[in-house]
């Protein structure tokens, strides 16, 4: 059974990943692992968009909205973490639901520009609405989550939380791609007109995916907020490019692409903190080179090698 084999592999990989902190207890390594897991989640959320044929530049803002929502729900409203966590996802999904029918009417490039403008406006609000969001100095002393009576206050616990979220996101994405919904979004990407002529309400499904994607991005923001206990608009600059780069590098055609992309790319700058400018420089060059020479990413490369070997044998 294929499902059985996948479940086995998935469980084994997760088990290994869960065990990582026991072998590498150093605080900075665990920090990198938390960030990687969060970017896997965010990368998968972007992957849902790309699979539908949409490039969104609003996902860094989506993550930020999730962060602020979750933090403020606990700080201002005194909601428990579990509720705040869900609220962060729902908040973004709601925004996607409201803006989607307008934004998604706009095809291709305009959608990209518009999501960029949206993210700018959102970030501007976080910067300027000081009484609520704390402006440029941001929010600090964000409470630690309590789940089932357990207080999350070590990096290790957050790693497991982020890992669980990443794992679930991966399963969600994979399930979607393998279901009727996955077939539908592939069809919309490949030949939208043809799909519509056969009775498919393409707009409805695009909004749906936008919402699911936003929901996941919001959740990743929530975990981030409570892990850092400190939020500022500045923290989200660069996320916009990272999340695209993860997909481009790994390959957007499979949910494994962004996972690989995040695992390889996110630790890099953290490991080479001293030479950050050069890191960024290399990042940029990598992005250009990948797009020109390896447009389908690592996954695409693997597939090409595999299929070449398949043909030879």
């Amino acid at each position: 059974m294929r499902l059985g084999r996948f479940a086995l592999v998935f469980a084994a990989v997760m088990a290994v990943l869960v065990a990582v902190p026991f072998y590498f207890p150093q605080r900075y390594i665990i920090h990198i692992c938390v960030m990687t897991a969060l970017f896997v989640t965010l990368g998968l959320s972007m992957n849902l968009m790309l699979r539908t044929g949409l490039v969104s530049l609003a996902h860094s803002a989506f993550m930020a909205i999730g962060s602020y929502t979750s933090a403020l729900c606990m700080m201002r409203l005194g909601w428990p973490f579990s509720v705040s966590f869900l609220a962060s996802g729902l908040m973004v999904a709601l925004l996607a639901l409201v803006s989607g029918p307008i934004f998604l009417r706009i095809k291709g490039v305009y959608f990209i520009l518009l999501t960029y403008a949206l993210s700018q406006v959102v970030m501007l609000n976080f910067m300027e609405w000081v009484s609520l969001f704390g402006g440029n100095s941001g929010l600090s002393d964000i409470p630690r989550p309590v789940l089932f009576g357990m207080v999350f206050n070590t990096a290790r616990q957050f790693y497991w939380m982020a890992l669980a979220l990443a794992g679930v996101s991966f399963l969600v994405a994979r399930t979607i791609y393998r279901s009727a919904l996955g077939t539908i979004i592939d069809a919309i990407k490949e030949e939208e007109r043809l799909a519509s002529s056969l009775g498919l309400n393409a707009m409805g499904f695009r909004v749906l995916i936008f919402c699911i994607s936003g929901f996941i991005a919001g959740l990743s923001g929530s975990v981030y907020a409570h892990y850092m206990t400190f939020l500022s608009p500045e923290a989200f600059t660069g996320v916009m490019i990272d999340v695209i780069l993860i997909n481009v590098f790994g390959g957007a055609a499979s949910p494994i692409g962004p996972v690989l992309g995040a695992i390889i790319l996110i630790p890099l700058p953290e490991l080479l903190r001293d030479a950050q400018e050069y890191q960024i420089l290399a990042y940029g060059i990598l992005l250009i080179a990948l797009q020109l020479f390896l447009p389908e990413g690592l996954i695409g490369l693997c597939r090409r090698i595999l299929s070449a070997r398949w043909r030879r044998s």
Partner: protein
Amino acid sequence: MGQLLAQILVNGLISGSTYVLVALGFTMISGIMRVLNFAHGEFYMMGAYGVYVLTQYGLGYFPALLIGAIIVGAFGVVMERLIFRWVIGREVNGLIVALGLSVVLKALALIIFGPVELAVTRPVHGTLDLGSVSIPYDRLLVGGCAFGIMLLFYFFLTFTRVGLAMRAVAQDEKIAAIQGVRPSFIHAAAFGLGCLLAGLAGGLMAPIYTVNPTIGELPMGKAFVIVILGGLGSIPGAVVGGLLLGIAESFFSTLIDGTVSAMLVFALVVLVIIVRPQGLMGRSL
């Protein structure tokens, strides 16, 4: 009230005119090559650093502005031949490549100049008082130069052979080719010219604000809003959209405040998209 409105209008036109310079190049490149140059703001940034460096070497402000912008334009031509020509017509791929270039240029600026704010000496001082409306001379200079450049650009597009060919390529590249126009030449020229315009805008604004590696982000964000407002690829759209944006911002931020202004402008953009998805001026040069 009338005085206030006049002041708002003047401020809006001046800031709008620099937006137009950035948006013109961006929209022209997208119209001719179907490439979204997300690195456009970095060419603006290069123009500002160009003026800074050249004036440090003792050059006067205006020669520095001109030479700096020409260098930026030449660099744009090189980038087009090296990178962008491979992604012509594929807007998403072009966008990712341009994002990469934007990261590279920002990192280079950071490596060369550091994260510090650099100041360029103002070429003029003082304030012009026209009764109720007062305009600092340096602002006036920026506005005047920007409108002058727009005029020159207009003449270039309307009355020169290459300008005409650029408009023709934007409308129908294949048909332009059978008239004898070499598309690759037009692509490189348009990309370079677009970057030169961005460089000029950066150089003009350098004395007013300080210079740092991220100064290109803001005007580029504005350029996006402008092309959505005016229509991607539309030259008149960039002018109308830019001035409109400048005046709207000036109006809202004087009467309310900056953040609300940004949100109102965004609401305006969404409104335009609902009513006219192709932008105010459609898609033609």
